[in-house]
């Protein structure tokens, strides 16, 4: 019995050591990003391995400079607007379609749902050129509408919400129907509120991937005034590539909003990714 307990203890110590080492490796790039941003350029490029902290004070003003020179206020605004409309459209269309596919029986349903499944299997790169041509024809280049365009509907979200609706008990609608609700009312007042967690998952998933996307905003919003954080950063990198504290400052400003949201809502984030990512 004593040896089993020692074995458990040794196992635990080994696990903690491995976890801590990996956690340290995960954090190094973040730490270096922030520390570099707070140095002067001279300090950042002085070749001394253990010169970790800024020596001549912490240069918070870098963030202010970067904020202005990279036009972050616009980048934040554009990114936020894109995320807002993408989430709104995706959740709205997917929850309606998910309800119909999950709860209603009507002719043509299976054929349509197989189209949804087929879309999920096609690599999205194949859509990009024609989508770009459409946005360009509509005159939506360099607009929020152009950024949102490919995300108006979501096959994956439809599938996710369909599974959510299927999981609800059968007699709910029957009771509502007896009370005289039509299908629209049943959907709005009874069923939709019950799938809130699926909608939150889809919302987080949509927001996160819209935030991280690089290629689409680069293509449709090439001007700095209209583009998103990710694409703006890519553009800025080409322009000011030798001031390392400024570049790291820009990276900090680009990752901070999502990082803060994640730390506050991490339970919803992790669960959202686990349930939605797990079905992708």
């Amino acid at each position: 019995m004593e040896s089993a307990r020692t074995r458990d203890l040794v196992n635990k110590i080994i696990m903690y050591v491995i976890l801590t080492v990996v956690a340290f490796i995960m954090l190094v790039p973040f730490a270096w990003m922030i520390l570099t941003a707070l140095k002067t350029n001279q300090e950042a490029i002085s070749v001394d391995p253990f010169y970790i902290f800024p020596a001549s004070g912490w240069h918070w003003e870098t963030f202010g400079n970067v904020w202005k020179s990279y036009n972050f206020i616009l980048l934040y605004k554009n990114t936020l607007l894109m995320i807002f409309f993408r989430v709104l459209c995706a959740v709205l269309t997917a929850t309606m379609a998910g309800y119909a596919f999950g709860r209603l029986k009507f002719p043509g349903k299976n054929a349509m749902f197989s189209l949804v499944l087929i879309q999920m299997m096609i690599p999205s790169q194949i859509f990009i050129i024609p989508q770009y041509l459409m946005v360009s024809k509509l005159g939506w280049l360099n607009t929020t509408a152009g950024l949102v365009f490919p995300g108006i509907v979501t096959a994956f979200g439809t599938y996710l919400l369909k599974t959510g609706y299927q999981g609800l008990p059968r007699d709910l609608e029957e009771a509502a129907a007896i009370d005289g609700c039509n299908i629209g009312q049943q959907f709005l007042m009874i069923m939709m509120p019950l799938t809130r967690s699926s909608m939150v998952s889809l919302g987080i998933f949509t927001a996160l991937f819209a935030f991280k996307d690089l290629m689409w905003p680069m293509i449709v919003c090439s001007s700095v005034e209209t583009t998103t954080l990710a694409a703006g950063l890519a553009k800025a990198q080409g322009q000011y590539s030798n001031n390392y504290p400024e570049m790291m400052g820009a990276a900090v400003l680009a990752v901070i909003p999502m990082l803060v949201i994640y730390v506050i809502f991490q339970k919803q984030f992790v669960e959202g990714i686990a349930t939605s990512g797990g079905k992708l």
Partner: protein
Amino acid sequence: MKKQMTVAEKNVMKWGWAFITPTMLGLIILNFYPVIQTVYQSFCKTGDFGKGNVFVGLANYVKACGTPETWQSLINTIKYAIIEVPLGVCIALVLAVFLNKKLAGTSVYRTIFFLPMVCAPAAVAMVWKWLYNQQFGLFNNILHKNVAWISDPKIAWIAVGVIGVWSIIGYNMVLFISGLQEIPGDYYEAAEIDGATGIRQFFAITVPLLSPTTFFIVQTRVIGALTIFDLMFMVMDKTNAALPNVQSIVYVFYKYSFDQGNKGYGAALVMILVAFIMVVTVIMQACEKKFVFYN
């Protein structure tokens, strides 16, 4: 024999179609029509100044297949996947098993491992590029070496792969944890009574029972890795000597379609990528029957 629909059935049909119409219309306009359009485009030469397309038959495919760049970028993409997928999956699995053990402080570790997942790859790549910097980067400073991490063709693909692993571990881990929570605890209790050690339990219970989750993660990650773009685009400057040995197929597609405006050639490249992904998917489906254990 067609059955007459009742009033109630007709009513349901009306609502059903009303609910799915926005999504279906969107999918047709945004996804299915573009597939046809891309196929058609791949047989065309893009006219100058948007003068419309000229049908050129298989010329784009002949050119793409005859260009070493296409094959090299496909090989680069596979090499990237060979680093990212196995390492990303194995490390994430070990971490997930540890975090599933109800140790104190697991939520802190989980938060940390998942951090890269909420960062835009554009920012992540910028930071790593700075870490890899040959003259002033942290790695060369600590190691007292002068390695050209991202401009030496021999190691640049590994350096980029490492960023990919670092970025994806948290995502894979979260999926593994939710898979692990579905394995009934009694299996482990029984194994404990039989005196099986932790490592023995891992290989005899966790690995087989988790295989559907593992397969799912591997499959999505393989496809994700084969369509990698952001990392290469952000880390590799256009003048980087190692670019031909690192650029992925999607990078080349982007370069031709949008930097150079040759959409016909770009469309042909994307068709080659899709064909390749389909072959890989079929192979993986065949493997699923062999290696995945369904209860």
